[in-house]
């Protein structure tokens, strides 16, 4: 199938709108999953994926196929998400979520509980610097290797590991502070 994708890319680069439409349909799901993992919000992800494809369409003439088109698109998506993260409104929205402390979790069903935990996690992530946040999401939530993550964010695998570790520590502290995790003995 990659041969077909390559042919579609070649045609799309020459302005064949139908080829681009096919690529859009074919690559949408993977990109949507990626952006949902980055943002933790389906509705926002839908908008950002649309914007990613729009920006990709504009940039398509400069794509020369050195990497698979999905990798190229994921890179554009990451930039779009970064811009989104920088908007103050987004930060405020997540900060609001952080205020909410967990209620009794024994009565809620598992699906709901997982979603609530995801919300709390993204609220904590919103407080992290972007490089830590990206490294953490790609490593811990998307399950990419340090090498793959490094390729996506443009750094070394070692640096990715350090960032992901720091992010994890900060998240643990934040989740403990708001009551999602229990405090260690001897701490106040």
């Amino acid at each position: 199938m990659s041969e077909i994708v390559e042919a579609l890319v070649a045609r799309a680069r020459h302005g064949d709108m139908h080829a681009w439409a096919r690529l859009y349909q074919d690559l949408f799901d993977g990109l949507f999953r990626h952006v949902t993992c980055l943002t933790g919000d389906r509705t926002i992800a839908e908008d950002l994926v649309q914007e990613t494809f729009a920006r990709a369409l504009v940039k398509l003439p400069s794509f020369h196929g050195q990497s698979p088109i999905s990798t190229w698109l994921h890179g554009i998506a990451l930039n779009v998400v970064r811009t989104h993260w920088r908007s103050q409104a987004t930060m405020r929205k997540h900060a609001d979520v952080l205020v909410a402390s967990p209620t009794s979790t024994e009565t809620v069903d598992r699906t709901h509980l997982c979603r609530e935990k995801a919300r709390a996690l993204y609220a904590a992530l919103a407080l992290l610097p972007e490089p830590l946040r990206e490294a953490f999401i790609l490593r811990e939530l998307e399950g990419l290797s340090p090498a793959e993550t490094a390729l996506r964010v443009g750094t070394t695998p070692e640096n990715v590991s350090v960032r992901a570790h720091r992010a994890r520590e900060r998240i643990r502290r934040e989740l403990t502070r708001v009551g999602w995790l229990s405090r260690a003995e001897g701490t106040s």
Partner: protein
Amino acid sequence: MNDGREEQQELTQFLGDASEGVQALAAEPGSRDFAAVVTMAHRLDPDGVSASAVEEACQFAPVIALPRERSDVRQERELDDFLADVQRHWTAMAGERRMAGLPLLRGHREAGRRRWAAAAAVVAAAVLLSVVGVHVQRARKTVLEQAYAQAPTYVKESLENQRQAHHVRPADGRSAAEEAPPAEPIVSAHTNPTAVQVARSEPARRMPHRNPTQSLVDQLAQLDRAAQDAWRVGDLPEAERLFARITVIGHRERVVELAYGDLFTLARQRGSSWREVVLWREYLVRFPNGQFSDDARAGLCRRASAEARADCWSRYLERAPRGAHRAQAERELEQASDR
């Protein structure tokens, strides 16, 4: 003594749950709108992405922002019923063929041809009627009865089973077609039945060269390439035929679903609204949760008769409370309740 391991375990457990939560969110298909993408690209770079590109993109699937056609309500309803009949016929044929076993064995090929010729005759008669337009109901009844009378016993039995099955409406209000299990290949009723018949019985004719040992995936990929090439050079009927062929020989492969997307586009480019309706129905039977299913359902609701429209949108909302067309669905239901 706590050396931090318990804290890490607790965090790991938390992250596992959170990850499960976000993966569940990401697993549900997102709304697509290719035309909106191109429009945005045009806004970002009006010179790089022309206005004509935006216009062209509006032709592609999915069906968002499809204008509702003005037509005689009664005729629309009759056409709707008629198309449902066609769909049932094809479902019956497919079910019969599934029971007979797939693929057709060499020794049964002749029998298979006859069966499909008979099936194609039933549908050919039915499809012909859609063009006639006037006196649809009466003519449809006559021709279908004649075709039915000439059909082999196994077809009649299959149709009878289908008819009985359709009298029992699923408890959740969804149509029987939607409830049908993903079928084995259903012949695309939008194509000329004769062409479909030929495609089934003489697959080598006018088809890309095929190695008999080639896997189905390779065959589908080859057909897809040929269809794309045909489209690129402007041979739309050939492209349509090849995409239809993919839907016939394929099962649930991704390329089959994408072929439906292309067939939707081609039908719209031709301005053939009834073909779109037939394709949407067929697609929903095979891919009830597919990537175009939201649009296909919305498209069917837009084309539903005035009487059936509110019910259709209501079912749409029931099935897809977060569907891309929910705003329209809510608007339609509000208007219906005001009437």
